[in-house]
């Protein structure tokens, strides 16, 4: 089971690495959101007199710049959007007959699902990391707090990975279930934007109306975003921040567990003989 999952995952990743252009759309999204959206739509500049640096800090959870606030959110957005591209590869595998050759092989159907989850996760995490680097290098960009270390970095990307894993389960099961790229794109469009906008990713939910706040509070994107942002903005956490972080991570683990089970059964059904 593990050997087959790895064989299928490596095949997909080999194809991906040999086609560097495939990461470009994702990369452009990052750049547009950070460099264009983040810089042009900087709420700090919306008021003619400008915000004072304390006001910025207050509004954006202590972040010294809007992009520092925004980076975690943009990375969440990158995770969500690029799951769709990974899904397209899975639909193509079905359309070109590759999936059938895998299905006639004596391997557990779970290996097909988990390799889909793994390949999508690796692809989007790579983009997430690139986005983080872009945020660091652009002018007026991401400013990390003093003392931000490897453990913090692991915490940040661990939170993203949990969100990515949950999303990957959903989108892999979806991609294995549909028969055409068109229907995948339709469903993805229907899912992704509300998922993003009903979260903390782009703006603090404190500015939301109550009903939206309620939804945003249970949205796993908000949790991953909050956990990662706490570390990005503060570096070393106070004990109350640490408990928020721990709650977010636990919440995400729970979501991942549920989505893995649902995704697995949905994929199993989608892969059964027709």
């Amino acid at each position, binding site marked *: 089971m593990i050997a087959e999952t790895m064989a*299928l995952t490596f*095949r997909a990743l080999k194809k991906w690495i*040999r086609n560097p252009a495939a990461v470009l759309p994702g990369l452009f999204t990052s750049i547009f959101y950070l460099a264009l959206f983040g810089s042009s739509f900087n709420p700090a500049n919306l008021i003619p007199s400008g915000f004072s640096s304390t006001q910025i800090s207050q509004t954006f959870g202590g972040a010294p710049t809007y992009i520092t606030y925004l980076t975690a959110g943009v990375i969440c957005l990158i995770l969500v959007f690029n799951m769709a591209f990974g899904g397209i590869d899975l639909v193509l595998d079905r359309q070109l*007959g590759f999936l*059938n050759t895998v299905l006639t092989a004596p391997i557990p159907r779970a290996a097909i699902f988990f390799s889909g989850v793994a390949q999508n996760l690796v692809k989007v995490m790579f983009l997430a990391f690139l986005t983080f680097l872009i945020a660091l290098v652009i002018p007026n960009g991401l400013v990390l707090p003093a003392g931000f270390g490897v453990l913090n970095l692991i915490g940040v990307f661990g939170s993203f990975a949990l969100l990515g894993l949950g999303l990957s389960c959903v989108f892999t099961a979806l991609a294995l279930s549909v028969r055409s790229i068109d229907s995948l794109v339709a469903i993805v469009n229907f899912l992704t934007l509300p998922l993003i906008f009903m979260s903390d990713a782009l703006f603090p939910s404190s500015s939301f109306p109550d009903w939206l706040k309620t939804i945003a509070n249970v949205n796993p994107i908000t949790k991953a975003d909050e956990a990662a942002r706490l570390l990005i903005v503060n570096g070393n956490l106070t004990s109350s921040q640490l408990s928020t972080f721990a709650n977010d991570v636990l919440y995400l683990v729970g979501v991942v567990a549920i989505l893995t089970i649902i995704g697995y059964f949905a994929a199993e059904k989608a892969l059964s*003989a027709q």
Partner: protein
Amino acid sequence: MTKIIEADHLTKIYKGKVKAVDDISFAVDEGEIFGFLGPNGAGKTTTIKMLDTLATITSGKAFVAGHDVHREPGAVRDSIGVVPQELTADDELSGMENIVLAANLHHVQGSEARRRSAELLKLVDLEDAAGRKVRTFSGGMRRRLQLAMGLVHMPKVLFLDEPTLGLDIQTRKKMWDYIGRLNKERGLTVFMTTHYLEEADSLCNRIAIIDKGVIKLSGSPAELKQKLGGDILTLELAETPVDLTEFFKGIPDVSDVTRTGQVYRIKLPRTEKALPIIVEGVVRKNIEIKEISFTKPTLDQVFLEITGKSMRDEDASESDSVFQNFIMERATS
């Protein structure tokens, strides 16, 4: 003889509407090459998909290598190799990488996977191209790679769906060669589909002709041709008063003789066997042979006889040409 594939009143109805396979029964013996012959849309691929666990069986039963396809799909998958009609090898991977992946998916790992892959690539004459991306392969090379990929775990039964579709005649003959050798040297049982009679004729021990989901006729190639009356040998002799009609009729296997002037048309199941006797007989009688030729029954003729329509009309069907174009695009891009 052990039956390695058994189909018992198999029916497949897609989504409650299209009846693709309609109550077919047949058996394939171990070590046999069994050919499923029929035009596009006849139900050949659907039959393979029911046997290789890809499609559910609407009604009836099927056994492959002693396992019930419906109840023990895992055991069936363990014993079969499948070479699909589509070219599924990955463009971005090399020939070697593709076949090693196929091995890995069949519990053959590590150096053993590489060893067998290299051996099979050699068998299909792809050892020089092994490191090249499949993107650069011709259509024939892709088909050969696909064949090797289906064999890397040494299956008991190999399903070949239109193994020569879209290939020119030389490349096609080469494929027949490989398949024939695998069958003879390794005792591999082959279940193959095709819509070329020459292919079925030169490769298969037995053939079933399927049309519109129904098996119309089955038997060895010789038997099928016999049902049609076999080959027609045309002999033109130099002017002579002797009537050879009765002489020809007396030769074993000859089923019918007609004479027009000095031209004799002799119907017989296989020209190769009777030809020396016929020629020798004529020469002994000191009669000069001016011209000799023979025609073999074509799938068209068999088909025309059985279904009342020509196979060539079917050949030009839209789905086929779309698929051919697709293959050509992949092969030439």
